[in-house]
């Protein structure tokens, strides 16, 4: 307790709540309000409608939602397998090369997403592999961008596992494969779920790399939302943003409840 007087405390709480509502409450509220606005010519909307949500769940927009979810799920799953694989493999490597490799796996998180997109565009518009204009290049872009975060989460989890459990299993004669399947991976499960959630959320909101590489047939939600607001359909854009945020949070909360109580933190 830093402030003892009740007037001082009331003042501090006032500052905190004002910051919280002005900075985080108002933007969310205004997006929600815009998503149901029918006519908005003065300070607040005069008419309300659910038409924008009907647009959000039909035709073009619903295809974009499906594309986003599919991209997020596939990219996150591949990133999870690759990240877990690298984190586990790195444990068997000596200290110095391990630190170098660790750095390499983290580097994609530092490179701007637009440059990742540009690189893929340059690399896969020429032989030997032509991927420009395919769905695959979008998924690859997301995979590259989220891979470092997945790897980071899994290896952080790995370093927090109790070391003795695995050693005991080994001393009891468990083969490495058995140990991995029955000891390490189950212990790691909460971190795997957290890693998947984080990368799925990042993929759902990804814009910089997607906008560089997406083909007309695989438009993700953020790109679709930009196109809508760019041509003035701002309320449709707001409704689609609400759908995007709600889907992301739904998946996050759904996953955080999945495996027992072990998830924690």
């Amino acid at each position: 307790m830093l402030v003892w007087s009740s007037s001082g405390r009331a003042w501090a709480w006032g500052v905190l709540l004002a910051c919280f509502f002005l900075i985080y409450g108002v933007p969310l509220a205004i997006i929600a309000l815009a998503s149901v606005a029918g006519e908005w010519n003065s300070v607040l909307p005069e008419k309300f409608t659910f038409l924008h949500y009907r647009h959000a769940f039909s035709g073009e927009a619903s295809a974009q939602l499906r594309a986003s979810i599919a991209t997020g799920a596939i990219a996150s799953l591949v990133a999870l397998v690759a990240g877990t694989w690298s984190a586990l493999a790195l444990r068997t490597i000596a200290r110095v090369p391990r630190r170098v490799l660790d750095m390499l796996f983290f580097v994609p998180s530092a490179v701007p997403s637009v440059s990742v997109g540009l690189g893929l565009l340059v690399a896969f518009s020429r032989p030997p592999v032509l991927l420009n204009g395919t769905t695959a290049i979008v998924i690859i872009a997301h995979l590259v961008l989220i891979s470092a975060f997945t790897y980071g989460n899994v290896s952080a989890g790995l370093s927090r596992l109790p070391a003795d459990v695995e050693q005991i299993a080994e001393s009891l004669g468990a083969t490495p494969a058995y140990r991995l399947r029955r000891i390490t991976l189950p212990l790691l499960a909460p971190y795997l779920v957290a890693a998947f959630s984080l990368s799925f959320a990042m993929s759902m909101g990804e814009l910089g790399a997607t906008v560089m590489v997406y083909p007309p047939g695989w438009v993700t939600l953020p790109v679709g939302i930009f196109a809508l607001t760019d041509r003035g359909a701002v309320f449709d854009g707001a409704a689609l943003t609400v759908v995007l945020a709600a889907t992301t949070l739904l998946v996050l909360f759904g996953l955080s409840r999945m495996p027992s109580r072990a998830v924690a933190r």
Partner: protein
Amino acid sequence: MSATAAVRSGAGPRLGGLWVLPPLLLLAALFFYPLALIAGQSLVGDDGAVSLAGYGAVLTGPLFANALWHTIEIAVGATAGCLVLGFVMALLLTFVPIPGGRLIARLIDTFIALPTFLVALAFTFIYGSAGLLNMAAMGATGLSTPPIDFLYSVWGVILAEVTVYTPFIMRPLLASFSLIETAQIEVASSLGAGPWRIIRQVIFPAALPALLAGGSLCLLLTVNEFGVVFFIGAKGVITLPLLIYSKAIEESDYSTACVIAMVNVVLSLSLYALYRTLVARLGGDRAGVV
């Protein structure tokens, strides 16, 4: 850290290292190879000869200088804003506990999961030329042009990015604040130290590692930010990522885009190196930064 070293594969510790090859090859093919091609293309002129001429032409142009300046201006401004706001909010949440404070902290933390452009879109509804505030101001004063236009300047982008990235400062700060012994503060307080003195002499020094680490991460993220700037769409506010996009996609000028991308990548990697060094040096306790 010690746990990772302790577990050595029983089956061939020498060959065990080969297991790292598949994910490493994947990363090389999908990330380092494209990055190398960007570097290659940035060095090749229109005539196909290798030269630094591309760099000379692009780096001395006004477009590039302008974008670089905006990028740095926005990143430094937004990071400073995030540090101040994050420190104040984390401080109040921890040391002047409010009922429901944990919920507030959780809600702010969830903001990290939302797309960054959400804030930019919300800002156009609030501060935009046809936004809530301008409507109110025009209704009250009878003006025919919107009086509030900061959203389409550097300040609009900075304010939006402060909103987006403050949670990234608060996360490590809340973790490091929770390590401060409350007894320490109560003793200081009972010895007559006022709240400002306690903040200055007890809390701030303890929070410094988290502030430095969070701040450098924030710099990196704001230098790389695309969605916020793209959505606000101010004609005069072009950053490096935006310039790369417009050169490559709108003008199909890949050589120029690659030169700018190289500069951007080098800038980002330097900031990333700074961040990792700070975390390694200061965060013996890792200060909550994963």
